[in-house]
């Protein structure tokens, strides 16, 4: 029920913040999505969509963080393996 999927904003229509809509591309499927809750959304942004509404603009820098975190875990492991003896 709380499913929300990411899609890319292709174009936007309207000025009224409550009824502004976007055409959003979900890997080839394009749907019209309400932008009332993401007034900051612009063309090219990735938004997270739930029941026809964009509920957030995905933060690109934060999106990469999981992978940076993985890298760091990798470095810590490497350090532990090479250990104080080396």
């Amino acid at each position: 029920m709380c499913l929300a999927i990411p899609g890319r904003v292709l174009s936007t229509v309207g000025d009224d913040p409550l009824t502004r809509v976007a055409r959003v591309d979900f890997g080839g499927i394009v749907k019209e999505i309400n932008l009332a809750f993401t007034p900051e959304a612009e063309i090219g942004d990735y938004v997270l969509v739930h029941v026809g509404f964009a509920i957030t603009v995905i933060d690109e820098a934060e999106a990469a963080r999981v992978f940076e975190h993985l890298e760091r875990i990798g470095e810590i492991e490497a350090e532990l393996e090479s250990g104080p003896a080396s």
Partner: protein
Amino acid sequence: MKYRDEYRDPVAAARLAEAIAGVVARPWTIMEVCGGQTHAIVRYGIDQLLPPEVTLIHGPGCPVCVTPVDYIDKAIEIAGRPGTILCSFGDMLRVPGSASDLQSARAGGGDVRVVYSPLDALEIARRNPEREVVFFAVGFETTAPANAMAAFQARRTGIANFSLLVSHVLVPPAMIAILESPANRVQAFLAAGHVCTIMGFEEYEPLARRYRVPIVVTGFEPLDILEGVYLCVRQLEAGRAEVENQYARSVQRSGNAAAQAMMTDVFRVVRRRWRGIGEIAESGLGLAEAYRAYDAEERFGPVGQRDADDGECIAGLVLCGERKPPECPAFGTRCTPEHPLGVTMVSSEGACAAYYRYRGVASVAAE
């Protein structure tokens, strides 16, 4: 799909699982709150990747599962009235009421329409001015702003033949109810990432302190869930109990202000019964006074107050994390998705359905 596929990388998942094994020293029990996370955990076998010290238990985050039986009965009654159209999210159609479900009501001639968005229901009302159109508004905080918008737009544009049958639920009161239960085993929570996308996570901070429980706001993909578990375990091992945000690509501390404003305008907090669990104070949303005219209960009479008799179904215990689906004697035998005894076997987010679908009846033996 960008922002999805990369979070399903099995090699990265294995590395995160290793990292968890590297930090864990003692046994810990962590609850994922959201049914969407439960589904991902069972589907991708995330629980099976974890070291034996870490137990994941499944939480109450399936709004479809906890909608009281009387609301289902009311929706069925409304659908059967001449001149009405009942609009609902697809998940609700097979949920058993006391005697029937919406799908059967439709087969019996009731006008039941599945909508993707609450605005689609409003559009149906606009196009059918001679009919009464009722939208069955269920969901958690993730869905509430969208449903609120349908009521807001109806009022703003003067669509008088539209109303909402509202059975919304709120997540934090359910977490408190679980923590205060004498049977509670939860030592840390993966908080529901999309609920927090709307609400932020400030309201969890006093909970983490008061109950000394780490709460990690977590996304829905395998790597998100594994990182959420990693952060929980690190806190537990260090004796910390804080709120952390794993899902920062979507969630900000104070949430989505525009969505919250819409919710507060249209809804008010009410007490709510949760199917299988019972009444939880201040745990739901109903329409605010200014929107009374759009309340389906005002137009079609109030919803009943009985508790469901779900027979041998132990969905309530499953929803509180006290039992896993394979521990139910009916699982996979008397209760299957074709012949469900309870909602958690029906809903695509229900824990019983997830185990049945991805683990099969064999999971009884494995547990």
